[in-house]
């Protein structure tokens, strides 16, 4: 049963990546990215990373994808025009990405991943406690980075619509 669920999520991810790589329509690639992100959240659940899966759905699939669609909407030349993008240097890009993929596969073939059974820990509580004790500096810095990014993005977007 677990193997069946694993195979389903793997297949969904591969189909999504296949659509992104092969399509020329920008908005279809953003929809396929949403599919990839949600199926990755499913894979995180299979890896016993519950909080990460929920954060992935909330922020990535519910935030970044919407931002990208708004970006596509505001950079079209006219209404009713499907945004097509050609690709240059496909053969060179294919060679480079295949080389990197084979290198990584060779590196990973020697890795030993052991399965850890951690389903008895209350993960949300543990991660929350570790945010405020072990990783508190990173936590505060990220809050600051979020504030700066929010103010900066709002100001930049306002500048572009003011004239």
């Amino acid at each position: 049963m677990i193997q069946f669920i694993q195979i389903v999520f793997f297949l969904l991810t591969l189909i999504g990546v296949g659509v992104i790589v092969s399509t020329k329509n920008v908005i279809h690639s953003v929809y396929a990215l949403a599919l990839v992100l949600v199926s990755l959240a499913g894979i995180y659940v299979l890896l016993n990373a519950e909080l990460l899966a929920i954060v992935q759905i909330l922020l990535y699939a519910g935030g970044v994808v919407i931002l990208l669609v708004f970006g596509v909407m505001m950079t079209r030349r006219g209404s009713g025009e499907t945004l097509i993008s050609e690709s240059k240097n496909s053969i060179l890009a294919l060679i480079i990405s295949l080389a990197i993929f084979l290198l990584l596969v060779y590196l990973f073939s020697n890795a030993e991943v052991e399965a850890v059974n951690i389903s008895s820990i209350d993960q949300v509580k543990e991660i929350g406690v570790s945010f405020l004790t072990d990783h508190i500096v990173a936590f505060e810095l990220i809050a600051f980075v979020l504030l700066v990014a929010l103010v900066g993005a709002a100001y930049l977007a306002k500048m572009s619509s003011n004239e």
Partner: protein
Amino acid sequence: MLTLAFYLLFLLAFVVVAVYAERKTAAFIQNRLGPMEVGPKGILQTIADLLKMIQKEDIRANAVDKLPFLLAPIIVFLAVFAGFSVLPLNSEVAGSDVTGGLFLLLAIISLDVLGILMAGWASNNKYSLFGSMRSVAQIVSYEIPMGLSVLCVVIVTGTLDLQKTSFLQSGNGLINWNIIQHPVLIIPFFIFFIAGLAESNRTPFDLPESESELIGGYHTEYSGFRWGIFMLSEYGMMLLLSIVGTILFFGGWNSPLPNIGSFNLYEMTSGAIWGTFWLLFKSIILVFIQMWVRWTLPRLRVDQLMSLSWKYLTPLSILMLFICGIWKLWLIN
């Protein structure tokens, strides 16, 4: 699995009754009678509407994007219905066993924005695009006060699991409800209710589908049964947010009758079937309040809507978060 099957059947039956109830509520508020022809006092009106909708022609314009156009209503319905999986039914039948149940619910509800975007974009129609952009902006802006007000409850109860929240409110009936045990949760309840109205695109926030301005908003180009799926998801979202509000603030499946002296009213009205009855009864009262608000208040303009969320509800919910933290610290001491 049991909760999923139960909630699916209940949702379908609920929509049939809720459409009729809404038309009758609208009629009585507007001092007229409503549907009276089909069946005694118009009870079979929704069934007649369903039959009409199923046999309508599935119009599909030539210039639409085929696959996203067909998938959009299904994505909206799936996102709304997947949220039902973490809800408990009574003290024995809990939802799915996720530690962060409430968090998962909020995350999955935010996925229905994808379906609305796909519907508006694939329709290739100015009005659909405007409607869907407005709806997306509204839903995304009101997720923040909703999440923060739910977080106020989580601070006070200390758990994200909805079944544990219901267990913490059992005991002596009305007195043990969260909103009466911790009176600091009254304002978060109002924030949750208003944000919930905005999440399901109901008046006074129904600008995306306003019939008088945008024809139909993002479901202009949908006819027949696909439009029916959009309406089903809207009622489903209303029911989902009412059930979550009941569990968080009003005691979930606990009975509201207290034990007075030797009359063990609380014991007499608890159990498996009583628990389900109390949960659904309280949520249906909340749904009725939502319908009542729809036909009483006028619609908000787009800039009023956004300023309400960002300038009033979000600072207020951050302030309530602070006050709930102080309340919890005072309780611990």
